[in-house]
């Protein structure tokens, strides 16, 4: 599964677990409008570290948390390389 598909799959699963409705996942979707709250994103980052073996936000001191889903995916694609 590609990094992008893994992320979208996990977002859908966490939304289900947390009883949230996920907005349609497009690259320009603003993460804050995605339906996941901050706890949801915290869980997402932890799960992605489990799946992809990398937590790009904690690994780098100055990593900025991305604004859109596209940015978020890019951070992982760069981190996974």
């Amino acid at each position, binding site marked *: 599964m590609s990094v992008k598909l893994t992320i979208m799959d996990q977002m859908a699963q966490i939304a289900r677990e947390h009883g949230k409705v996920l907005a349609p996942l497009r690259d320009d979707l603003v993460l804050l409008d995605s339906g996941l709250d901050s706890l949801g994103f915290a869980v997402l980052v*932890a799960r992605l570290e489990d799946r992809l073996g990398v937590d790009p936000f904690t690994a780098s001191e100055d990593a900025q948390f991305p604004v859109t889903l596209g940015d978020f995916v890019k951070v992982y694609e760069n981190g996974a390389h």
Partner: protein
Amino acid sequence: MARTEPQSLRQRIGEHASERFFWDRTAHARITDLVGGTSLAGRLGELAGKSVLVATGKQLTTALALIELDGIARRLTILPPDADPDHFAPVVAGAGIEAVVLDHASPADAALDLPLCVTCAAEIAGAAKLPAPTRETEWVLLTSGTTGVPKMVAHNLAGLTAPIARKKADGPIVWGTFYDIRRYGGLQILLRAALGNASLVLSSAGEPTADHLDRLGRHGVTHLSGTPSHWRRALMSPAIRKISPRYVRLSGEIADQAVLDSLRHAFPKASIGHAYASTEAGVAFEVIDGHAGFPSEFVERHRGGVAMKVLHGSLRIRSPRTASRYVGAGAPLRDEDGFVDTGDIVELRGDRYVFAGRRGGIINIGGLKVHPEEIEAVINRHPQVRMSLVRPKASPVTGSIVIADVVLKSQSADAGGELAQVKGDILKLCRDALPRHKVPAAISFVAALDVAATGKLARRHG
């Protein structure tokens, strides 16, 4: 209950005529020989009235030295097994140590250039004349703080032995403990054996659990004590079948329902009790109904001279069994009403108090507070889980998030995604029982969890 005149431990041992033994891994002593004998090479008199550091390396010699010195030494400070050599000097200064008792296994630096240094042997030699006990000895135990110099906690023998009921046993008693007797939980068992006409099987650092259980079985242990972590580790060993204690005791950590149920299953006929005790608060109570937590009426009603209250969420205890003070430290051990704050957070659920965790052990998730023990208790309910550790993990989003390390009862290879199924089941248990910030974000299966020298699950607060 009428109390008799204070008597020394040696005198109390002499009250019983029957022959009994203390065993460790490599040696044993017929403890009843201490009535007319000594393991201190006849030098007991030199230690009279002194502040003595017991820095023995073996538990058997520790037991012999403590029994001999009670009523003789002015103060007995017990060096715990994993004491940091950097802390020896502050302990000597703080407790005004004048003499040290060593054995062949003592830590290298423990002699400390003290003027009086006495060696304790594992053998008891007959003595024509022994000095008579003339004083109440102050017993000093060191706390197991994770950082800094340990606190020195002062007790007397009357307080230490107050929780021990004097009753006739049906048949010979062989005590065993997973604890080290140089800590409060283990010392309680040494005293129970010494006063209760019992033999005692001592633990030994580094001994594999299976060997220890085998030894306990060979000596026919009838009464066995340890922390819930000790017990979970023992339950993971097939050698658990070698013992069949009549009495099973847990203390020192929260006993959750899962460990109580597992012990009930392993020992269907045993009496199973979980005691609440700490170095500072002493033994406060024991619960024998097989349920986690304790009845709320324990707080409302004074039992055996023990008063309890819950203030700012934590359990506070006032009793003749609490320590009297910290030696050489400024902070008082009791509040102005005589209560010791245990630092253990309790919550009332129906007519029972349950332990929610330690104050200070709290994980903060985006401003919401989480006690790891509460989550572990839920995970441990899963029938395939032996034990678990919930810990914080740094999160860029919420500061922290909880993750769980889980040890399964049987560690077979993952056949057909079985582990994924168990992981899913555990998460479902958590989601059903806990608010979502307490549901672990990730679960890892691990082969074992670290148990510290104190017998408690090793936690590193991040």
